[in-house]
């Protein structure tokens, strides 16, 4: 097992200044010339432990590999970035799936309007047999980490 190397990430800590609207020479209202926010250097966040098992698990779920340490670092940074969400108070707020949640989704009648396009659909597949898509044998789980072609095995 290994722990992530600590990485400091610069995060804008939003601190409020008073809101001032300066009147320009022409008497027009200008946008406040001073930013509302200050960029503060954040203390390093507590190290997130991303275990080898988790990385292996993710590779299996996604069926996509990390390729190298850069890939793992990318994930670490993504998680640390996302952790900022926890500062927001969402007490009593419902999650929002869609901006159109107050409308009914359109459902069309269950009538056949198109089809019979087997040839077109099969054209794009690289391996077909008669009217089937050909696939290698299924129900075989991805090989264990030691046997897979994954850079993670080097870190074991």
């Amino acid at each position, binding site marked *: 097992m290994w722990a992530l190397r600590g990485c400091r990430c610069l995060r804008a800590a939003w601190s409020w200044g008073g809101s001032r609207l300066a009147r320009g020479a022409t008497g027009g209202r200008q946008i*406040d010339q001073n930013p509302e926010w200050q960029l503060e250097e954040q203390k390093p966040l507590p190290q997130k432990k991303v275990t080898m098992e988790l990385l292996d698990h993710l590779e299996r*779920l996604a069926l996509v590999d990390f390729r190298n340490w850069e890939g793992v670092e990318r994930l670490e940074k993504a998680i640390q970035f996302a952790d900022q969400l926890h500062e927001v108070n969402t007490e009593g707020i419902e999650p929002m799936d869609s901006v159109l949640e107050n409308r009914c989704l359109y459902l069309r009648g269950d009538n056949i309007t198109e089809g019979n396009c087997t040839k077109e659909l099969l054209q794009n597949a690289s391996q077909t047999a008669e009217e089937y898509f050909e696939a*290698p044998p299924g129900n075989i789980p991805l090989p264990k980490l030691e046997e897979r072609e994954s850079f993670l095995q080097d870190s074991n």
Partner: protein
Amino acid sequence: MLRAALREVSTALKEGQVSPTELCQRCLSLIKATKCLNAYITVTEDTALRQAEESEKRYRRGQSLGDLDGIPVAVKDNFSTTGIETTCASNMLKGYIPPYNATVVQKLLDQGAVLIGKTNLDEFAMGSGSTDGIFGPVRNPWSYSKQYREKCGQNSHLENEDSSWLITGGSSGGSAAAVSSFTCFAALGSDTGGSTRNPAAHCGVVGLKPTYGLVSRHGLIPLVNSMDVPGILTRCVDDAATVLGVLAGHDPKDSTTVQDPFNPFKLPSVIDVGKLCIGIPKEYHIPGLSSETLKVWSKAADLFENAGARVIEVSLPHTCYSIVCYHVLCAAEVASNMARFDGLEYGHRSNMDKSTESMYAATRREGFNDVVRGRILSGNYFLLKQNYEKYFIKAQKVRRLIANDFVNVFSSGVDVLLTPTTLRDAVPYVEFIKEDNRTRSAQDDIFTQAANMSGLPAASIPTALSEKGLPIGLQFVGRAFQELQLLTVAKWFEKQAKFPILQLQEMLDHADALSHQKISLSS
């Protein structure tokens, strides 16, 4: 002629001053002359000429289909087009030829538009620079403009300047470059976090993101289903309204399009902004905003006020969380949407055949680039059972807070919001690539992204040139489904701003010279 607005060209076509075939030929030669911009992945020369001929026949019979008949348009390469390769700038879909047209593409073709080519983008529309596709980055036409070169004191030896060219912004950079360099009159982009408005601002063109649910997404290879919208890029606001008129409306093939009837509109020519209330969100003034953009933004606010509009400061308190929220929701939806690429039915397939799982894994390893893989893996992390509530659901709750911010502002009497589109003008490619894709997206999407969260319509309008002679755009955000009001305000502003035309003559002359050189060398 190539610089004219859609309406003017349409009139010229009707009156026979120019023929659709001539127009098409001119655009095709210009594409060849501006090849170094790398705006196009596929140039559909034969199809375009054929469509132009059909259009010519219709004009001769006096039966033109409308304002778009015979007009060359370009389409971003993540829209499906029958018989034309659609790659999303990815190895995964290289060689993929869709058997159907995206609804928006079909609507354009039904109106007689001439599809001139598929434009370059970031791989699967993930990125804010149009630099991460397999066909290479797109160059901003303004890199070669007289305006930029004069300001930067560069001589006209274009070969020496090869390393200082600028990015277009992204991810619809190819479409923006195509419209900006006059090779087409309108282009389709997609907008998930600002992908149409960002390159529009950097390339000095109009970029419109319609309300979510107004334009069909059928055939648009999806990135984030709850935020994607097809975007429209044109050289003036009137043109954007014309194209929107063709594309908007309910589509039975996309159940997320609203069923409200849509009436295409023509923008008024005399506009009075006196009764309007313009909101300036104070949270959009962030430390990274360039002083030039800030100046341009302030001047625009003054412009409205001097014309009699009420310009007030408003607050969107959750703005600072929109990027984080987008980061989580985007990764989660991407993880789900990219699961369809397994090599079986279409796209790249690996030679590995020990088992379906290992074939899928190998195919996806070979097909996706780092950016896509990174988002898929982060998305899967956020969707793990132990993280679902903490990250995904949490982000959805924050999304509601962000959307409510807008609802509150608009219900307090504000008609349109005025904000910058980008932090600064376009940067050179060599500078842009110093940071990774995610950092760049987090920086560049900051102003545009909240409109996608809330589904509201937004448009970036080219406003002024920076000190370097590069475009700066400002963004207008309107109420849901109020594109008429949004574009009317935008049109008024466009008239006041009088943004200069891109002067590309030097580049075209140079391209001519190069081709003559080649001819004389070979003879």
